[in-house]
Structures are given as C-alpha cells and as structure tokens.
C-alpha cells in the first residue's frame, strides 16, 4: 500500500495531463487542428532524401531563379529534375506593386499561404500541391493559385476582394535567420484572435490580426519581436510559432 504512493502520484499527474489535453482539444477551433500525422509519415522519406538538394539550391539565390525558367523547357539542365519535385520549401516576398507580402510554405503535398498588407487585407490559405501547381483556399473566398519552381513561386492571390499577383523567391537562410512566416493564436476577452506575420529577408515585416473565428475583420498586428518571437497586445503576450514547409512547423 505504502510502497505504491509514488506510482499513484505519477498516475494522478498523467491523468491530469490527459484531462487538460482533452479539454484543450475540445476548446480549440476545429480549423486549427489539421491532420498532420498521416502526411508526416508519408512525406518523411522523400523529404529527407530531397531536402539536401533543396537547401543547396536555395542557398545560391540567383542560380535557381534562372534555372526555374529553364525548368519549364523539356531539355533542361540535369539539376532541375530533382528540385522540381522538392517536397519542402518556404517562399516569402512582396506582392506585385509592393502593397503587401505573401508567404507560401510547401510541405510534402500540402501547402499553407498567408497574404497580408499589414492592415485589413489578409488571409490564411491551405491546400494541396499537385505537380508544380498550388491551389489554396481560405475563409471568405480567399484563394491563391500559383506554380512553383526551384527557387520561386509565381501566381495570383485574392483576399478581401483585393487581387495581387506575385513572384517570390525561397527564404534564404543566409540573408536573415528570422525571415519567414509566423503565426500566433490567443483568446483575448473571450474572442479568438489569430495573428500572422511575414518577415522578409531585409528584416521588414508586415502583420495582421484576425479577430473572431470568421476571419472577416483584421487589424494591424503589433510588431513581432523576432528575437523573442513574441508580440504584445495590451497585457497579452502572443507567442509566435514559425510556419515552415522546410521544418514542417505549423502543418
């Protein structure tokens, strides 16, 4: 009897953990629960084999930009063949006209994109990768169609009735460590808010905060401190999490 008390402590703690985990799952909006495990299992093998090719290609920025043009031609150089089917990549850049930024994360056959003008026009999208084509959709008719090549993704995105075309490069690890796409979710005064930031290679960032689950209303996000990965709305501290196809974070 007395000998088992540490085990009881352990089991009580485990039970408390399970209860809190289930309670958390029940309170989380269903849209925030993508089914990732199946994709992780299926894409693990190709991701590990092709990832070195991708990282070596993306580290030299000008080269892939040229080879992406060549990749559409049948008689391409030998190197584009493996990179065209690269299952993981992150892209960020300004949209045409410079009125905002777009970020695309490709992980296996899934992709997540975020477009944001740093104010009311923004939207998160998810979808499938089919060949080199991306068709992503989000709330309120937000949608993105693009084709992606080694080093570059080109297409159109529409959010809140605003249409942008874009052609943006892969996130270069050398230019800025913090460059990329980040998200944070919190409950403030009973409302679910979702913040998104796109940090570009030159360190500039845009971000918006969706208020409520409909995603219809958005405001300018507080500045994301990339050193601490946090931002503050009043007293509430938002903890940003990277959304990255390369690491699989956020998928």
């Amino acid at each position, binding site marked *: 009897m007395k000998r088992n008390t*540490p085990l009881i402590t352990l089991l009580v703690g485990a039970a408390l953990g399970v209860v809190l985990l289930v309670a*958390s799952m029940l309170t989380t909006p269903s849209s925030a629960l993508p089914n990732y*495990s199946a994709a992780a299992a299926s894409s693990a093998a190709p991701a590990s084999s092709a990832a070195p090719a991708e990282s070596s290609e993306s580290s030299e920025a000008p080269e892939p930009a040229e080879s992406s043009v060549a990749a559409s031609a049948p008689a391409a150089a030998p190197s584009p063949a493996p990179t065209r089917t690269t299952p993981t990549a992150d892209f960020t850049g300004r949209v045409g006209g410079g009125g905002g930024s777009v970020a695309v994360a490709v992980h296996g056959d899934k992709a997540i994109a975020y477009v944001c003008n740093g104010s009311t026009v923004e939207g998160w999208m998810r979808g499938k990768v089919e060949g080199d084509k991306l068709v992503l959709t989000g709330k309120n008719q937000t949608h993105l169609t693009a084709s992606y090549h080694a080093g570059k993704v080109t297409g159109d995105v529409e959010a809140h009735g605003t249409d942008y075309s874009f052609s943006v490069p892969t996130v270069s690890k050398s230019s800025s460590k913090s460059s990329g796409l980040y998200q944070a979710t*919190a409950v403030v005064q009973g409302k679910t808010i979702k913040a998104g930031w796109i940090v570009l290679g030159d360190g500039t960032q845009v971000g918006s905060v969706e208020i409520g689950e409909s995603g219809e209303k958005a405001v300018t996000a507080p500045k994301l401190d990339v*050193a601490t990965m946090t931002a503050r709305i009043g007293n509430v501290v938002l*903890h940003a*999490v990277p959304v990255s196809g390369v690491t699989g974070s*956020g998928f």
Partner: protein
Amino acid sequence: MTAPPTQPIPLPRKPAASTASLLIVPSLIGALVALALGIYGRVHSPTGIAINIAGFSSPGSVKSWLATGATVFAIVQVGSALVMYGKVPRVTAPEWIGGLHKWSGRIAFLLAVPVAIHCLYALGFQQYSTRVLIHSVFGCLFFGAFTVKMLILPKRGLPGWVLPVVGAVVFTLLVVIWLTSAYWFFSTFGIKA
C-alpha cells in the same frame, strides 16, 4: 589461498548487478516518456491555443507563475531531502519532514503538468532559438527523469547514492526549464499576474 581474493569479488558484484537490474526498467520507461513527449511535441501541429486558466492576463503569465510555484516547491524538496539525509548541521529531521518532502513534490509535479500540456499542445517542440531548444529538450527530459524517480522510489536494495543523484537530476532539469521560460518571461515582460 584462493579464498581471500575470490571473496571480495562477489560482494561488490552482486549489489552492482541488482542495482542495474533494479534501475533498467524504470530508466527505460522514463526514456520512453521523454521520447514520447518529444515526438508528440514535434509531430503534433502546435495550435497556439489551449485551455486557459481564469484570472491571469495571458497563458504566458499563467505558465510562468505555475512554473515558479513548482520551482519553489522543488527548492523545498531539496531542503527537506538534505534534512532527511542529515546533511544540515545541528538540525535533526523532525517527524513531519517525510510528509513535507512527499507533499511538496506532489504539488510541484501537479503544478508542472498543466504548464507542460500547454507547451506541448499549443507551442510544440521548437528549436528556433537556443533558449527554446534547451527548454524543449529539458522539458521532455524532466518528465522522463521524474518518472524514473517515482518508479525507483519504492524499490528496496538500491545503493544510497541513487535517489539523491536522480533527485538532483530532476531538480536541475526543472531549474533549467524555469530559467529558460518563466525567468525569461518575467525579465522580458516584467513580473505581473
């Protein structure tokens, strides 16, 4: 002539073998706990959101205060253990010291569980900075080490150094976790509820 050399050999060997056999299953279970937490934190998509506790301004401050509470009780753990082992000069262990040690440990553990669940569910295993990587790794290790401690506690016949060493590992892991989270949180954003 052969008796004196052979006699000392079985004596240390026998306890050594039983120590290993007593420790191996708890250690394996602890390792599996740490591994399972790490894999869940890595594979599960962080939601950024989990059940919140009323009365605090944000999950970050809830977690920081709970972790600070756990760390304070963990310091009580070390103090009461020192008294129990007679390591504090001129202090004889009072009758209630065992109870204090048990209950401070239980409270510390139960305070740490909600923090860990929020970390695992809302934030996941992350590595975008050294602080976050250390916190993620040590967070998983802590619950593995705590499991080992709880499983070997009822075992009889362990050498005297085992429990203090495992206890010290658990305490050290918790302090590092606290330094890389709550201490960082309070020093970055100020101490607030």
